């Protein structure tokens, strides 16, 4: 499904600010995988997602997505097969446009000069009703009026409307209150399962890293230091995970820096 072959990315190369954010990372994601990714601040998790999405070209290595070499493809081309959510609920939708207009644009069906038919709009409304947030009755309201949680749920819906093959979630519940975060997280698993999506999810919550998905990666200083799945993963506890981190990175765990919650 997704194959990263020895990719590397250095920011500001050749300057005193040079920062090797990803160094020789190799990863093979199978179709249907739901992978949780954990790691300290600055470990390179978001940079990994940016590389997969094509926000910048990688310095070296190859990215193969769905059987196609996309290493040199611009971001908007890859977006056809990738859905993405950010930590910031504001980033995924256009605030001055209505919920309906956002959904129509995200659904992306039809030619440039086509307009969404009544039937299509009704279908979008029905889909939105599945969120169970009452948003379907506010179709004509600008998205800017929604709360962060509502907006993130809407973005989740939008990201999965066009049936992406790969869903990337970058701490997408971090800005939400615990109740809403749980709701959005459950929604996420439901949508991923219903659509048989392949999904990578960055989280700072060790427990949800173990609870959700079938595989967990730990990143440190731009590489993957721990990769677990199956029975080995099922047997893991949060404390085990912390211990693994200590072993793998070979340094004492600094809780302030890790910012991990049990």
């Amino acid at each position, binding site marked *: 499904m997704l194959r990263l072959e020895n990719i590397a990315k250095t920011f500001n190369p050749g300057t005193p600010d040079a920062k090797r954010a990803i160094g020789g990372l190799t990863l093979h994601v199978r179709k249907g995988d739901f992978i949780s990714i954990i790691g300290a601040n600055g470990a390179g998790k978001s940079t990994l997602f940016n590389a997969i999405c094509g926000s910048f070209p990688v310095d070296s290595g190859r990215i193969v997505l769905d059987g196609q070499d996309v290493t040199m493809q611009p971001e908007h081309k890859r*977006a056809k097969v990738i859905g993405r959510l950010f930590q910031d609920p504001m980033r995924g939708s256009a605030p001055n446009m209505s919920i309906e207009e956002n959904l129509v644009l995200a659904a992306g069906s039809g030619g440039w000069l086509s307009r969404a038919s009544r039937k299509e709009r009704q279908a979008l409304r029905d889909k939105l009703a599945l969120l169970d947030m009452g948003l379907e009755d506010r179709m004509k309201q600008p998205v800017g009026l929604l709360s962060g949680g509502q907006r993130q749920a809407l973005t989740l819906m939008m990201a999965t409307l066009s049936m992406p093959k790969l869903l990337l979630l970058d701490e997408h519940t971090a800005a939400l209150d615990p109740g809403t975060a749980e709701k959005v997280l459950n929604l996420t698993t439901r949508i991923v399962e219903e659509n048989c999506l392949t999904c990578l999810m960055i989280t700072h919550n060790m427990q949800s890293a173990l609870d959700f998905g079938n595989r967990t990666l730990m990143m440190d200083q731009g590489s993957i230091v721990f990769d677990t799945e199956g029975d080995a993963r099922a047997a893991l506890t949060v404390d085990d995970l912390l211990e693994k981190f200590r072993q793998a990175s070979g340094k004492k765990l600094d809780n302030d820096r890790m910012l991990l919650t049990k």
Partner: protein
Amino acid sequence: MSLSAILGLGQTALELALFNSLTVLALFLSYTMLNVCDLSTDGCYALGAAVGAVVAIAGHPWLSIPAAMAAGMLSGLVTAVLQTRMGVNSLLAGIIVNTGLYSVNIWIMGGSSLLNMNKTETVFTQLKAVLKDTPLAGSYALIIGLIAVAAVILFQSAFLRTKLGLAIRATGDNPDMVRSSSIDPVFTTTVGLCISNSFTALSGCLLAQSQKSTTVDIGSGMVTVALASLLIGNVFLGRKSIPVRAVGAVLGAFVFRLVYTIALRFNLPAFMLKLISSIIVVIAISGPYLRSQWPLIKRRFGKAGA
């Protein structure tokens, strides 16, 4: 001053407002929707006037309109390519194109900075001939202005609801989201600027033909005047649906013209027009900002006084 003279004055003001409201509608697309402040507007307005005049003088009054619009589109394309493909800041791209257009416009006008259309067949003289001896005889300019404005509003209302139109609006609102909807914001910006500049050029073309002459400076200060009108319209109808907001933009042009005409009646010299438009733009943009800052200013002032 006789009643008919006042009415005549009112009609001229109305016609001027109609022609210039096409530029306001252009900014409605580029400034309000695409969030690009297109500073090539002045030059593009003069470009439309120059191309329209030259084509009309060559004996093709009706062809002058599509020709002017095509020229505007081309100018918009250059502005767009500069800012999306060549790393030029969007304001600077407009300024550069505007400067370049000064030379281009004189070149189009055959090396002169003034073109006279006194004896030229224009769309206005043609319609005037058609309407001769009908009750509408005196309103030919008004009719052309109304048709053009109505056509542009209808076009925009329909266009901004298409997928491409939505994508253009989203580009101004949240380019990240456009990219993740697998649409290239470079493409949407380019299309948006091409369309908006074609309206600006149409605006200049019609104004020049209606006053039977054009100069290379005909568009000077247009961007501020149009922005002022746009922002005035926004005050009244800013939160409504797109077609209503487009109508609001045109109304803004009328209000602006009205204020200006009244000011002239009070013996304000004509050269003050541009200063007035600048002041209106400042008030319209910084008014809401200052209002939001007001509690802070008051608190600071209160502390200092205590």
